[in-house]
């Protein structure tokens, strides 16, 4: 029947009876392709299950170990796993909180500048610059923080300690045996404050990028309604932009926090941390973070010591997991609220 139309016979791979509706053989291409796709998706599940399983199986013996079995020379004097893991967890959270205190106002301000204040062309170019900041490898941040930022800030820390030591966090004075107070400032500015500053710098572009997205999604209608009522730009931002974006900013901050908690190299390079708990920012006695502690000790540790570090890594994984879950939860609830898909 297709003699008048030669092309019809060329159509289709099963060309012998191209006008039959019944498939001559199963369509292997579709089956294979959907099989590969589903298989890859399941790989994600397998990989994560593997991460959880392998970490746990290596970590469990270390978590329940007796004090004298510790393989790490520094912490063997400190007792069981939790006695050094918990101070490290404190250091991790403390450094991240400090970084957030600096990064959140900065990042939200920059995002606001790029979305609602800067001229459009400027905003695009500067947006790229901020994204480039996000691309700088953490080891380079660490190098810069250690060799450039810390020494630059050292005189400032000295001044801070002399004039602001009434504020407990900035107090770096210690009484000697004879009762005389001596400053115990960190050498070359390598203290918790510098580390937190570099951390803040590293998470600022992440929070900026996400909040800028959210700010730009503010319905133009709301903004114009506000401006039409005679609001100044700042009043418009307060009335229309910020209320709309609040959940988005919170989740952006949580994601930034997750990043700060897990950041390794910058802290490992800048901070000569110890296993201890203190809120003081300027002294040479600084709490270490889990990630930095692992990086500093893993290469030299042996056998059981490595397992203990893996156990610490598992704790870090759980902390970041919880923070990220909360962030995703906020995003998901917001999506339901706005009704948009």
């Amino acid at each position, binding site marked *: *029947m*297709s003699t*008048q*139309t*030669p*092309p*019809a016979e*060329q*159509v*289709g*791979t099963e*060309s012998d009876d*191209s*006008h*039959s*509706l*019944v*498939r001559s053989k199963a*369509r292997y291409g579709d089956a294979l392709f959907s099989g590969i796709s589903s298989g890859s998706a399941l790989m994600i599940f397998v990989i994560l299950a593997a991460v959880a399983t392998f970490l746990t199986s290596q970590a469990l013996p270390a978590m329940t170990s007796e004090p004298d079995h510790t393989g790490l020379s520094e912490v063997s004097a400190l007792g069981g796993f939790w006695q050094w893991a918990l101070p490290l967890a404190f250091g991790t959270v403390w450094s991240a909180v400090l970084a957030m205190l600096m990064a959140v106002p900065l990042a939200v301000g920059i995002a606001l500048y790029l979305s609602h204040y800067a001229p459009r062309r400027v905003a695009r170019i500067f947006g790229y610059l901020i994204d480039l900041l996000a691309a700088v490898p953490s080891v380079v941040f660490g190098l810069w923080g250690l060799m450039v930022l810390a020494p630059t800030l050292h005189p400032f820390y000295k001044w801070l300690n002399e004039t602001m030591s009434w504020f407990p966090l900035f107090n770096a004075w210690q009484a000697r045996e004879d009762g005389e107070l001596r400053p115990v400032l960190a050498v070359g500015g390598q203290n918790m404050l510098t580390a937190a500053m570099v951390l803040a710098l590293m998470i600022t572009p992440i929070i900026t990028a996400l909040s800028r997205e959210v700010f730009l999604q503010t319905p133009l209608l709301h903004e114009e309604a506000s401006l039409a009522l005679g609001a100044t730009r700042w009043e418009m931002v307060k009335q229309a932009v910020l209320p709309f974006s609040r959940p988005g900013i919170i989740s952006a901050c949580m994601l930034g926090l997750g990043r700060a908690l897990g950041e390794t190299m910058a802290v490992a390079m800048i901070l000569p941390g110890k296993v201890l708990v203190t809120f003081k920012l300027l002294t040479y006695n600084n709490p270490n973070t889990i990630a930095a502690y692992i990086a500093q000790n893993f290469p030299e540790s042996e056998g059981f010591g490595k397992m203990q570090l893996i156990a610490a890594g598992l704790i870090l994984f759980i902390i970041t997991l919880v923070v990220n879950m909360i962030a995703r939860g906020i995003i998901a609830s917001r999506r339901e609220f706005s009704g948009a898909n």
Partner: protein
Amino acid sequence: MAKRIEIKDLDIYYGKFHAVRGVNLTIEPRAVTAFIGSSGCGKSTVLRSINRMHEVIEGAYVDGQVLLDGVDLYGKDVDPVRVRRQVGMVFQRPNPFPTMSIRENVLAGVRLNNARMPRSEQDELVEKSLRGANLWNEVKDRLDRPGSGLSGGQQQRLCIARAIAISPDVILMDEPCSALDPISTLAIEDLIKELKDQYTVVIVTHNMQQAARVSDTTAFFNLKKQGEPGELIEVGPTEKIFHNPDQQATEDYITGRFG
């Protein structure tokens, strides 16, 4: 080569939602059949069930028979992909492939199915299809330019050329002119009248003048009540439907007293 379509007791569902109920309809070959009716009455849904595009949407299925020259499209072992090679479709908005040139768009049906064709035959097919879609003279000098660079009306005719290039038996058109200006619409309507010499043409339209102008047979779909499934109310020669319909609902709709 044009084939007769018989729809028997067709019920169409989207998941739990019963969209269309109990359609019985015969569509004659070498003629234009128009589906008219208000929005949401299921006319596009019925159209999409004729080339099994309906089931592309997740959870959608049909119950009943659609016979193409006596062969049930929903029969056992029928391959929907093969059905679509015989029942072509043109969509509401022109949708040429943006990564392909005009020439590649026309050949898309052949190429995407990996069929081999000598260059000379390809050229022949491109010219034949574009002439069939009344587009050849406008684009013959720029066949290698992107298809998305054409005007809306030209894009829609390119889509028609793409559909007829795989030599279907039936061409379905889902509101093919609703995104076009009046002049482009006229060009498409002229083309539809020419296409019926070779194909069975089914067109869904919101525009009753268009149905009156181009179709030989008209089928009117409506909802009995809001929330009820859509139904086929009346079908007959276009002349009769527009001037002397049997059903009150049809007359109300035609004369604009609907709703």
